[in-house]
């Protein structure tokens, strides 16, 4: 039955509402309770939930129109229904899904009414039940179905006893004449797995029952009704008969391809969302450069003990890198910007996100106003942010307002990576393992502390030249820290 959408009772004193935006178009599928149209009354905008599932058949109240409570706004069609004024009377036209389950009104007799083994062609819809003993040719026919959901292998049905089986399991079941309904599935959603069938077969073997049913009777490879099924061709390789069989070790016995299923954590869902959003919006491009970190390695080596002794802070390379990055961003402001469809927003503040690995999932706490902090302040704050991130003690403001991000894939040994931009930012710097490498200086091979830098930038906003120039600037600064750190500290 088509369901009429009306302005519902929205309160004692609400008599009418203005139609806002239609959130669905005519012909669009609708789930029950999904918002379909906005109704505005006084200071409230309510998104009207769909009274039923189906497709939006008709809109009778246009946007901006004032409608009284109870007034008709449109019509939702059930599966297989069409607007009466079309008058074609062809019920199938509106429901290309071809699912008997979704369209109870289509003239498909329920399975229970179909005499077994005598199913008329076309009466068996996908997803209905068939026992393995029913004629295969009939099951696969489904001639009235406009679109069978899957090609049916071997003229067989896609489901056994309404169960979804993998092709391998289906084959095993068929070959052994197993009634799947007798097996309790241990797979996802109670699905019968290969392991279940094997266990079932073994149990059957042990029971020694059903002697009349030869297990593993040679499976017919072709549908029985196919004329002229070729007999197995003589093996062309017979001339080179093997001397030895390839040995099969015990561990190669068919085993359970085990899977476990866990719900996604809230954190993981958010990370997934953010990552996809980034890849779908930003035009990622990554450039790499090599930095000679030898001076900085030596400098930090001289500083770190004193810093630890005097301040109790572990001095890592990160504060130096942040300093260099902020300096680079000042000179190349486009990398500290963000964009809308029509505008560029240049940020005159430098909030540097630093990606932190946690067992629960990645998080990016933000070092705010990095341009106004000393090396030691930054060292302390970065350590604190990391600790609190891992201890789940971050506050909301700790993860907000970033303008550029640094991610350290080197922490676990990576020497290069192409990071994903933390949108709406437009740049992310990947820093990596600092290791001794053989490099050429003045025609001689020498050992230096080297690190790869990777800059992913949003090529929509940032051209290659400023990106490369920025990266090169960061490299220069890191290679020669004495020259600028004094006035930057």
């Amino acid at each position, binding site marked *: 039955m088509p369901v009429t959408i009306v302005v519902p009772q929205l309160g004692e004193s609400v008599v009418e509402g203005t139609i806002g935006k239609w959130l669905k178009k005519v012909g669009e599928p609708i789930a029950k309770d999904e918002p379909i149209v906005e109704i505005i009354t006084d200071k*409230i905008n309510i998104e009207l939930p769909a009274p039923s599932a189906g497709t939006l058949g008709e809109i009778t109240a246009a946007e901006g129109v004032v409608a009284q409570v109870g007034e008709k706004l449109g019509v939702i069609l059930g599966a297989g229904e069409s607007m009466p004024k079309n008058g074609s009377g062809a019920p199938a036209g509106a429901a290309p899904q071809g699912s008997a389950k979704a369209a109870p009104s289509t003239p498909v007799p329920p399975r229970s009414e179909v005499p077994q083994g005598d199913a008329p062609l076309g009466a068996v819809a996908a997803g209905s039940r068939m026992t393995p003993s029913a004629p295969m040719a009939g099951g696969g026919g489904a001639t009235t179905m406009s679109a069978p959901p899957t090609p049916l292998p071997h003229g067989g049905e896609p489901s056994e006893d309404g169960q979804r089986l993998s092709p391998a399991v289906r084959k095993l079941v068929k070959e052994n004449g197993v009634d799947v309904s007798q097996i309790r599935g241990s797979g996802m959603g109670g699905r019968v797995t290969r392991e279940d069938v094997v266990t079932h077969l073994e149990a059957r073997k042990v029971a020694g029952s059903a002697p009349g049913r030869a297990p593993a009777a040679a499976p017919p490879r072709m549908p029985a009704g196919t004329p002229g099924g070729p007999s197995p061709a003589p093996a062309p390789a017979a001339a080179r008969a093997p001397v030895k069989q390839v040995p099969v070790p015990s561990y190669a016995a068919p085993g359970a391809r085990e899977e476990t299923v866990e719900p996604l954590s809230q954190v993981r869902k958010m990370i997934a969302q953010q990552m996809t959003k980034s890849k779908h919006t930003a035009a990622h491009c990554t450039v790499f450069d090599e930095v000679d970190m030898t001076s900085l390695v030596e400098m930090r080596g001289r500083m770190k003990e004193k810093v630890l002794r005097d301040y109790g802070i572990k001095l890592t390379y990160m504060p130096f890198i942040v300093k260099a990055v902020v300096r680079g961003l000042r000179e190349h402001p486009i990398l500290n910007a963000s964009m809308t469809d029509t505008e560029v927003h240049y940020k005159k503040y430098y909030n540097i996100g630093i990606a932190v690995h946690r067992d629960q999932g990645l998080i990016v706490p933000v070092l705010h106003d990095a341009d106004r902090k000393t090396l030691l302040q930054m060292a302390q704050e970065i350590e604190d942010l990391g600790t609190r991130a891992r201890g789940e003690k971050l506050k909301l403001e700790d993860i907000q307002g970033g303008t550029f991000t640094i991610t350290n894939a080197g922490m676990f040994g990576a020497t290069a990576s192409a990071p994903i931009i933390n949108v709406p930012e437009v740049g992310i710097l990947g820093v990596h393992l600092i290791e001794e490498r053989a490099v050429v200086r003045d025609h001689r091979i020498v050992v230096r502390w080297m690190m790869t830098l990777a800059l992913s930038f949003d090529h929509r906003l940032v051209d290659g030249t400023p990106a490369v120039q920025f990266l090169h600037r960061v490299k220069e600064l890191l290679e020669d820290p004495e020259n600028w750190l004094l006035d930057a500290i």
Partner: protein
Amino acid sequence: MTLPIPVAPAPADEAAVPPIPAYDLGRVPYRAALAFQRRAVAARAQGLAPDVLYLVEHDPVLTVGRSGGEANLRLPAGDYARLGIEVVDVERGGDVTYHGPGQIVGYPIVALDALPSGRDLHRYLRDLEEGLIRAIATFGLAAERRPPYTGVWVGSHKVAAIGVAVRRWVAFHGFALNVDPNLRHFDLIHPCGIRHLGVGSLASLLGAAPSRADVSARLAASFSEVWGRPVQLASADFAHV
């Protein structure tokens, strides 16, 4: 980075009157809060989160509700951008609203069925006004409604604006109470399209600005009365994320 959504605590046994936690999130960029609200609504509608009252403060921003139009912006749209003020179209009802530092913006993300108003939308608006009026009254100010407008006034000064959206019968958006905002910023618009009434703040009416924490506590108390459920100020420490 996206903002975390609090996960629903285990429902208490005395589920008759479940409390409504109130989190003061401090300064949150408007668009971030908007995205956050939309996710929070979805979470609430799916039963993944409890009813919550978020308190925030925004950087200067003009939001244009569904009944709004450029007519109530006093300057060409581009001028606001030059002043550093964003103009954002939003799905709530109502016209143009200004948000800025010195306001307590309240976003109750609540299932209407779990409030005294039920699905009576006007009642929900009146209850929001009532909560604000009672909180303001504790400062000795006679706050009142001015039908047919929605909002709260002290004398001829509007001190709180209201605009609400409902999705899957969960309310979002909410109210903005002027504690101590820069009142000159309101000259940038005709607040809510009402051109003949002025704007005031608790600070301008009291002569001194009460603290944000103080006002928040009074709001929690008054909404506890109005909604018949304990609104409890909680620390916005997202420990579960």
